[in-house]
């Protein structure tokens, strides 16, 4: 199973600042292993961030997002103590969802 994400969600002014690190190979499908065999593509395709039942960011990614991806964005309407949920789904059907509690500013 995929490793947990590292999520930081902090109030800055009236906005929630979200920074997340995901543990993922983001393999391009173009590389070869030591035996010269192609390493199959393995990458996150979809990321969805929700807060209070509402999607605050959704993304589609290709293979050129860096390994162990980093994402940083801001949204309005969150309060300290509330939860932000981040979910990803990769091209091999693996998925992972984690949540973080919004910290005060």
């Amino acid at each position, binding site marked *: 199973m995929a*490793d*947990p994400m*590292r999520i930081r969600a902090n109030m800055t002014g009236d906005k929630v600042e979200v*920074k997340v*690190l995901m*543990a993922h*190979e*983001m*393999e*391009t499908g*173009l*590389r*070869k*292993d*030591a035996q010269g065999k192609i*390493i199959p593509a393995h990458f996150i395709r979809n990321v969805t961030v929700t807060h209070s039942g509402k999607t605050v960011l959704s993304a589609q990614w290709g293979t050129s997002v*860096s*390994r*162990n991806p*980093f994402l*940083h964005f801001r949204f309005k309407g969150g309060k300290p103590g509330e939860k932000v949920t981040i979910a990803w789904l990769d091209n091999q059907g693996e998925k992972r969802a984690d949540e973080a509690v919004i910290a005060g500013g």
Partner: protein
Amino acid sequence: MRIQRVLAGVLAVTLPCFSPAQQDTQKEIERYRQMLQESNPAELFEARGEELWKTRRGPKNASLERCDLGLGPGVVKGAYVRLPRHFADTDRVQDAESRLVTCMVALQGFTPEEARRHPFSGTGAPMITADPFSGVGQRSVMTDLVAWIASESRGMTIAPPMSHPKERFAYQAGERLFYYRAGPYDFGCVTCHGEEGKRIRLQNLPKMTNAKDAQRAFGTWPAYRVSEGELRSMQWRMWECIRQMRFPELEFASDASIALITYLAKKAEGGTFDAPAIKR
């Protein structure tokens, strides 16, 4: 006679080293490095390492929570900056990795070979491949553990003990290795790390006999290397430098590797430990 004069001319000509454009290159690279600091995937490895420390593994189904890293069984906080050190039970100077091998064998019942099997994540060396993005994912228990153990010394002062005769001998052997030039490229560690302010390509090289440089170097390993997408330990740093020096392979957790690390740790004494870091 003529040749000699020409040669003298050749040697006398010095060129302005850096035009403004090249100073801009350095400045932009510095900016790139600063941008990387915003987020360090080393955290992901540290989190796994902390979990592994507490996980029951091996034939004895035991965790590493009683492992003695030098400050007593189970004490991790501050242990990394007081390594390498002499351990009475093995009568050997050990760094973090070699000590973990000892604990995996003694506490968890692994054979030494099993404990050493995957010292570095990925393949260790960059892969030979047509693809521009190097590194391939294969997890290493050892790397994850070292990432966490090192993180538990963040902000502390590098202070390797040097009171046991074997610690002093490791330092002396490490110094000798540092100056040892050999192989088809005539390289030694000193070739790249003997002068101040030099670079390979755009990578700045620490002069290891200079305390400030050594402190920065020792204090920023382990590190997440963005070029490989892997967490790399100090053992790996030695192994990789030695590979690029065109030497035979430096064995993981070998006495020579520990001697080199002891030499560097002593040179870095008094510096602030700030690892796992993030680097090119």
